[in-house]
Every structure is written in C-alpha cells, then in structure tokens.
C-alpha cells in the first residue's frame, strides 16, 4: 500500500471506535465490522490527532514522529485509509465534525 499524501487532511470514520491498549490500540469499524490493531502508541497518537491537525504531516509531527520515520507512518495511515478506518476531509475543515 502506498502512503497517503502528507499534505492531505484526514479524520477517523464516524463509525469507528478506538480502544487504547498497552500495545497500541484496537480500532473497530461498525459499518464494515472490521477490526484493526494499531501496534504502536505513537501511531495511536497520530490517528487521534488527525482530526485537529492541518494535514497528515502535521498530525505525525505533533505525535512526535521524526522526518525519518514519516514515510513509515504515512504508509500505516494508507492501510487505515484502505479499510475506511480513516477518511479524507477537505483541508482546513477540521472543525466540521465538532460543529455537526
């Protein structure tokens, strides 16, 4: 899976529930009924920060991902996008979900 574009903006799918665990987190999508495991607390912080960050790059940076590791995290987000765990949102539109 190719990584997502670092300049694109994302958020969790509204039907996805996140349960933090010592090893990372469990994600469950109530629509597709699929389970995903995040094997990494940093990745969890990235996912949780997507909504309020300007773009994917900013979300990674805020979670403490170094530039060296950025491609790896963009690929991981690509896998989550493929299974609709996260969905793209218009850039700069991060308040929309809270306002709704």
């Amino acid at each position, binding site marked *: 899976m190719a990584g997502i574009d670092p300049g694109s903006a994302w958020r969790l799918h509204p039907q996805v529930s996140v349960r933090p665990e010592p090893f990372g987190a469990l994600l469950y999508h109530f629509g597709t009924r699929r*389970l*995903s495991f995040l094997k990494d607390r940093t*990745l969890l912080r990235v996912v949780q920060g997507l909504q309020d960050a300007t773009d994917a790059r900013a979300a990674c940076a805020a979670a403490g991902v170094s530039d060296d590791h950025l491609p790896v995290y963009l690929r991981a987000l690509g896998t989550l996008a493929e299974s609709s765990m996260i969905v793209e949102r218009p850039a700069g539109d991060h308040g929309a979900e809270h306002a709704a």
Partner: protein
Amino acid sequence: MTIVEAARPQPMRLVDHFELGLDAPICLTWELTYACNLSCIHCLSSSGRRDPRELTTEECKSVIDELQRMQVFYVNIGGGEPTVRSDFWELVDYATSHDVGVKFSTNGVKITPEVARMLAANDYVDVQISLDGATPEVNDHIRGPRSYETALRAMQNLSDAGMTNFKLSVVCTHQNIPQLDDFKAIADRYGAQLRLTRLRPSGRGADVWDELHPTKDQQRELYDWLVAHGEGVLTGDSFFHLSAYGQALPGLGLCGAGRVVCLIDPVGDVYACPFAIHDQFLAGNVRMPGGFAEVWKSSELFARLRSPQSGGACSSCQFYDTCKGGCMAAKFFTGLPLDGPDPECVQGYGEELLKNRTDRVESLPKASTDHSHLTSPPRPRSGMGPVRLTLRRREDFDAPPVSACAEDPLAGFAPSREGADGRIQGGTAADPR
C-alpha cells in the same frame, strides 16, 4: 482484521500481547437463553429448555452497560435460540444504542419479512444464519426436520429487505465438507458472507463427534479451500490448528480463551470460552459483586490462562509456533491432556493419543449443564415406562347406564343386539328394527 504497524522493531509480537490478555475482551459470546426450538445433535451448549435462573431484562441491560464502559465493541449473541426471548429485540436495541454492536446467531425461525426490514435498517446489527448442510438431507439430519427450509426462508427475507453481508454460518463436518463450494454459492445467492467454524466435542457435540468430525483428508481439503478463499470467508479464527499444514490462515492464530474472548451463559456464568461449559473453565458470574468486569480482571482461572503456557508434549514439535497446541476445549472433552496435541492435530499426534487413551468413554468430562429437550431427540427414559391401557367393552352392560333423571321414554330400552347375520348391530336405541 488488519494489523497496522509502523516498521520500527517491536519488542513484542501482537500475539504475545494477546496471550497475556487484554483489559477487556475484543469480542464476547453471550448466550441469552438455553431455550431453543431445535435440538441440533451437535449443540455445543446442550440447549433446548429455558433455565428459570436466566438473566432478567434488567440484568442483561446492566451487563450491556458494563460492556459499554469496557469498550467491548460487539457481542456475539447466541443460545439456544436467542430470538425466542420475548425481550430479545429490546436488548438488541439497548446494546446498539449503547455503542455495543450485536452479531447474533439464529436458526432463522423469527426472521420474518418485518424483522428483516428492522435489522436491515440498523447498521450496528449483524445476523448469522446457521446452516450445517448445503442440502436438506445433510442439514436436517443434524439440525432437525425442515430447519433447512427455515434457514433459507430467513436468508430470503434478509436479502429482500436489502440486508447485505449478513453471515451464513456453517459448522464443518464429515458430511458437509464435500459441499463447501455449494455453501459458497448459497451465500453468494443471498448476498451473504460465508463463515465456517470448527465442530467441537462440546455439549451434545461430544456424543456425535466421532460420527461428524472431519477425516484427516477432509481437514486437508478444508485447509486448501480456506487458503484459496483467503479473507473472503470468515472462520472466527477456529481453524488455527490447521495452520501447521503450511501457510498460516488469516486470524490471530491462538486460543483466545480468557485472554481475548470469553462466554457469558444464560444464567450469567462466565466461562473461558463458548466451547468450554464445564466447572473447570468457570471464572465467575456476572451477578457477583463487581459484575462482569471484575470476573474478567480478577478471576484466578483467567490469570492462569494468561500466564505463559508450556507447550508440554508439543513443545518439541516444529509446528508448535503455528498451531499453539490447538483448541483447549477439544482436548478437554476428548480426554486429552491440555498441554498436549489437539485431537485433530494435523501431524496425527492427537489421533495417536486418542487411540491409546485408556479412559473409557463414560469417564470423559461432561458439560456442566444440560438443557436438552427431554423428548427430542428420543432418548431412553428411566422409571416404569408408559402406563399400558387396554380399551374394551364391559361384558356386563348391554347399554350405557341409565341415570335416575333420564326422561326419554326409551330410556333403558335395549334393542336386540343380534342381527340376522349374528353380528352386533350399530344404531341407536331410538332406531328399533
């Protein structure tokens, strides 16, 4: 299921975490009632009759509240036949409006067109229709007369209501493994997804395991079929013991009992897994102080299951890392040691042990509860048996006795009973010849 990781080296593999247990189960099987309209010969919970101690509606709702607090994403509801509980739809609504998704197993008896429409409208509900033969002959032998028809009608109703991707759930047996492609075709016809699971020698399944469980060749056939169909066919992770054939099957690949799964039975007892209804695997009851969460966190049994397991007799086998010794319940109910091979070990070690087993069949562990119907399937009864009656006429009466109040002018009149040909005549007293 997808595992998403960033590529940095991890100190522990995901399965290692799971072996140590999670703060809450990933999913949980909840049998709502022991009542069932069917008497499937392989029923793993020996269901049939309702238990008077079953959890009330209010008690069920408080369990759901706990599951919501623990962030258990969904429950697999079964039974018995859960839909025969009069509060079933109320409980489904309660769970789904409290962030607990519901997947329930049913034989389809209550899935009318109206119910199907209601289910199709709720994103948080998934339905699993049980069918154990792709033809009525194979299915009805196991699940009872006309159960094939019932299941197919339910699938038709779900499909007509626009429900997609519900599950067609099949327990793989000696008789139906040749029908795998046919099951897939049935699922496709109704827009359903096929789910195959393993026959366990649990509950009534213990009585028929020898007759129904797949042969070694069939296990290989099943494995190849599963590999060919990949993630398109669900298995509930129940065939991880077959991974020792080669390529690992999709799934966690470990026994999740007490670590990532467990069972709540209709009376609130919490067992390590749905296939292990036996005192030895009983962790507690949701009615105890602290409820389900306390049982999950503090049960001594679960702590033991979460501690590192030795491979026992299997630890020297090169496939131990893939099959992990197989299914605990399958070993237990066939009388094999828990730290040894699975009875269906693909290397044949289990078969060998079964052959040399010294225990007699009667001394094998039995499920702790049995709610089977008493009449179906017929079983030998104890006691004096039926009262025998012979119906015949009393010789000392020519006619029915006459009551003192009889006003009929012909009361007591008895016509001659002998006709011309010597036979007893029919007719009434008012019809003199």
